[in-house]
């Protein structure tokens, strides 16, 4: 990726001193000393075992977690809550069962002021993103008529419809079958290349990270910290059986499983 020019937006600066959750069993330090700069148009994958705080980190960038010490900046502007400048895709598609694909994709646009985006522009955007994820024929279908992979495509289109500068994906393909997952990995690359947004994808699948990322953020738990930043310089399309690919994968694996990298003491769902 060439990232020259001042007009390119989507720089994320993360400066989190710490983020703790307090529960019935006391407080748990989910994140500590996270310093990370993500470049415009960069594809970053955050890898780590359960409890390393990777989802929490993504939710902080999304603005869904607001109680923490520190700050996150998007293009130099401090983030305070959610916004259309960040598109979010969750592990579950979270589509609204009573809306068609078209209306689900346009769900977030309905609240925009008309002068910001006219009616015609909206419906053109909705069509564009439905088409981009390859679901033209399904525009007026309902979510229950779609497969898991298709639902996740709709979720991606919904996240993009707000024309975000950053696309945030939280284990988006984890609940898909292996073949669908591989196809969706190719798809997200194609979409990224077409849209040129910054992408942050959280995963526990090492191969997925090596296949997708420009840079891999390897995290370790208790407290969640960045263990290693690993640039991936393999050219795309990447071949999963290629010797270099396997080498990078092993390197990520070694970082993850090195002493202190993965402890199974951490509770789930953090």
């Amino acid at each position, binding site marked *: 990726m060439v990232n020259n020019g001042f007009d390119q937006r989507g720089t994320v600066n993360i400066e989190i001193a710490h983020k703790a959750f307090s529960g019935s069993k006391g407080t748990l330090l989910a994140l500590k000393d996270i310093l990370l700069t993500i470049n415009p148009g960069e594809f970053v994958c955050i890898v780590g075992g359960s409890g390393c705080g990777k989802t929490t980190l993504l939710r902080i960038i*999304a*603005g*869904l977690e607001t109680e923490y010490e520190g700050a996150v900046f998007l293009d130099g502007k401090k983030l305070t*809550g*959610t*916004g*259309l400048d960040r598109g*979010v895709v*969750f592990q*579950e598609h*979270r589509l*609204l*069962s*009573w809306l068609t694909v078209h209306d689900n994709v346009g*769900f*977030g646009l*309905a*609240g925009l002021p008309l002068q910001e985006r006219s009616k015609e522009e909206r419906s053109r955007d909705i069509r564009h993103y439905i088409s981009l994820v390859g679901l033209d024929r399904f525009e007026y279908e*309902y*979510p*229950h*008529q779609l497969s898991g992979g298709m639902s996740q495509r709709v979720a991606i289109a919904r996240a993009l419809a*707000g024309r975000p500068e950053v696309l945030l994906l939280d284990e988006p393909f984890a609940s898909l079958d292996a073949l669908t997952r591989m196809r969706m990995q190719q798809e997200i690359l194609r979409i990224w290349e077409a849209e040129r947004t910054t992408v942050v994808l959280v995963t526990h699948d090492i191969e997925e990270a090596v296949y997708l990322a420009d840079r891999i953020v390897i995290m370790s738990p208790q407290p969640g910290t960045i263990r290693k930043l690993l640039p991936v310089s393999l050219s795309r399309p990447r071949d999963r059986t290629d010797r270099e690919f396997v080498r990078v994968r092993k390197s990520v694996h070694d970082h993850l499983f090195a002493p202190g990298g993965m402890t199974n003491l951490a509770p789930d769902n953090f």
Partner: protein
Amino acid sequence: MSTAEQNPGLGWKGAAAESTPRPPANIGRIYIPDRLLGWIIPVSVLLAWELLARVGILPPNWLPAPTVVGKTIYQLAASGDLLKHVGITLARVAVGFLLGASAGTLLGGLTGYLPVARKLLDPSLQALRSVPSIAWVPLFLLWLGIQETSKITLIAVGAFFPVYLNLSVAMRHVDPKLLEVGRLYRLSSFQMVRRLILPAALPEYIVGLRSGLGLAWMFVVAAELLGASSGIGYLMVDGEMTGRAAVILASVILFAVFGKTTDWIMNAVGRRLLGHRAR
């Protein structure tokens, strides 16, 4: 992407099905479509009942023949009494149900959305709910008299609770993951309710309306049995007083027919509202 394309083994079967579009009939066996199966017992019972009544084994003042009951309904209709009684009963159910369901919707929506309202109101309403609604009758009669007000109040109380309860619980139990989607798009509280919470709660709300309507019918029977000078329930009491079993049976059938019809209408409206949503 059809399965026939993917599975060549299905190919010849598809071709065979084209030449013989229907499966061969069951030769040597009586073939009864499934949807007729359910009619066997009621039709047989009716036939047996008619037969036994005509022969005189069943005393006519105790269990008159189905044809006699039918004739009674016809006579009631011809005299204009039927229209009068059915009309007043339907009006009571409609007004009572509308009042009860409206109150249930209002309070259910309030307690479902505002935790404060729930903490304030729900314990009292639950306490009232634990009183079997018929037990209110003497009090309603004392307060509101024997006229329409007490009857409609009783029906409204019956319709209120299922609507209130279902809406309140459904709104509270909307998947927090969907609410997060609303947060991502910075929906206001009002938009959150209108665009996420209410649509998500709609299926359960419709179930509540249907049970509320069912209870409205139950309570109209109670109200009319306990003191009325018109209505299908009054017809029943009149039939009992004058020893005409045919009138009582005719009233039972009328209740069943109209109760079922309104439920069917409500169900159709509900399906319409839910559209193509997965059930």
